[in-house]
């Protein structure tokens, strides 16, 4: 029984769609277009909502702004610092959790706990953990004879501090997704390999990893996208500043600063568009690379 759309059915459907569409058109779709247009506003009076001049000046400004390039570099450092480590650690834990052990559920809940808590509140806790003189982390390092590190006040250590915290926070999510992926692997493959005398490491390399490649692919895309948008953690960890001497300024922080503190709507919009283009291109590259590696 195939139904064809009619005018009556379209009207009816529109009634069902109306509430969602009104919101989505106003706050999701229109702003995408508007943001693109705003990035060309070079002379704009926000209070009167009048644009006096359009042009490419915002983009030239950004590309010549050393602060912007610094935020791009910081963001890249962050992505490269968080994503691979987080994937390796969470995969390891997921594999251990997938063995025949007790208290599996309890372990899983513990690792997932940071996911549900407020980034802001937990960043406050980390700010305290990272305290140079009274922080638990420096105290623990001291037990191993390592000297105090000025995590939050030394520009060199600001990025590592953020990276460690974000790995900690994001671990649980990756573990859950990996576990779901692991449980989808056909157990007979392992039995067959065992009969053929394959050692655990071989089984991991030749069964687990290839069978897990779609999951791995998904996680790496999601993690890269989310890492590019890091903001809350920076804001909360450094008390509303982008780290000592701008050492932890990320792209979104740059957008926020231009928009919220300097009221440069055009420049902020242009930076947001650039962020979108960067994320879009990197996702495309990942899709390309992924297509050749994935074994379904």
């Amino acid at each position, binding site marked *: 029984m195939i139904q064809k759309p009619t005018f009556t059915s379209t009207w009816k*459907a529109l009634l069902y769609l109306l509430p969602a569409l009104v919101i989505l058109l106003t706050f999701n779709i229109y702003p995408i277009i508007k943001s693109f247009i705003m990035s060309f506003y070079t002379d704009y009076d926000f209070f009167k909502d009048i644009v006096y001049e359009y042009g490419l000046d915002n983009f030239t400004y950004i590309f010549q702004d050393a602060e912007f390039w610094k935020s791009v570099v910081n963001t890249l450092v962050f992505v490269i610092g968080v994503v691979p480590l987080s994937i390796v650690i969470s995969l390891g834990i997921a594999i251990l959790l997938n063995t025949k052990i007790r208290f599996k559920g309890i372990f899983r809940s513990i690792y997932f706990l940071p996911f549900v808590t407020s980034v802001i509140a937990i960043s406050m806790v980390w700010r305290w953990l990272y305290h140079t003189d009274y922080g638990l982390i420096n105290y623990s390092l001291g037990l191993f004879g390592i000297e105090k590190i000025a995590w939050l006040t030394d520009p060199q250590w600001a990025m590592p501090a953020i990276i460690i915290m974000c790995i900690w926070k994001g671990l649980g999510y990756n573990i859950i997704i990996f576990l779901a992926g692991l449980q989808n692997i056909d157990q007979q493959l392992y039995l067959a390999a065992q009969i053929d005398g394959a050692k655990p490491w071989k089984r991991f390399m030749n069964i687990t990893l290839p069978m897990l490649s779609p999951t791995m692919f998904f996680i790496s895309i999601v993690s890269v996208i989310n890492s590019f948008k890091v903001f809350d953690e920076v804001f909360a960890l450094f008390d509303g500043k982008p780290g000592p001497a701008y050492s932890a300024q990320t792209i979104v922080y740059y957008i926020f600063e231009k928009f919220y503190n300097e009221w440069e709507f055009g420049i902020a919009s242009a930076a947001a568009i650039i962020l979108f283009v960067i994320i879009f291109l990197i996702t495309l590259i990942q899709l390309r690379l992924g297509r050749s590696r994935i074994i379904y």
Partner: protein
Amino acid sequence: MQRAAFSKGFIYLVLIIGSVCMLLPFAWMFITSIKSPGEVMMMPPVWIPEDFKWENYKEAWSMAPFARYTINSIIVTVLSTLGELVTTILAAYAFSRMHFYGRDILFSILLGTMMVPGEVLLIPNYVTLSNLGWIDQYQALIIPWLASIFSIFLLRQFFLGIPQELSYAAKIDGCNNFRFLWTIMVPLAKPALITIVLLKAIGSWNSFLWPLIVTQSKEMRTLPVGLTSFSTEAGINYELLMAASTMIILPMIILYFCLQRYIIEGVAKAGIKG
């Protein structure tokens, strides 16, 4: 057998060390929150405070309008979650069960916009809201979040999995679309709806950048925004800052431990980041 026991011991060891690393920040937050100012700054650290200073909570609570922040967070979370639930159910039903012109194109456009990072929407949305005169009002905190493409997509997939025959049977019995949706589809889609509600509630309770931008007065702040300004006021009084953090984190931890099965399974199935 011996080797198996050894490797099992190793697995437990690694998992337990990992768990300690995950829980330690929470434990340290709580321990610090009931210390006296002197104990906070003691080295080596004090693990069990001499007497539990519960009054830190009272003090933190009265130093900033946390009551107001909490009420705001509850209002925003409850209303935006309920609102999103209604718009999602209606839209997902239309996309999965109704036949209308432009359905597939519209759906693809919506999915396509999910590619755009939310930060791109920030500035135009701010301008829209200030034109509407909604800045620093509940409308600004709630209305832009009353619909989510991701939730519509999730529920549509779930609706598509419900056998079509049910709706034929219902129609023959004289049940119209609207009643069919609410009395048959919605109860059947309970697992998907619980996932949508929980992820939305967690995201809404914890959201920061948007409430930071659209609120100006103290009275309109939500808990996370209030906490960042409190952290400046609290300064080096870490016991107060930790007490405030505990107050924000605790409701979510309780909710999590009551409903963790739904949250974890929901994330595993939906595969999204809140």
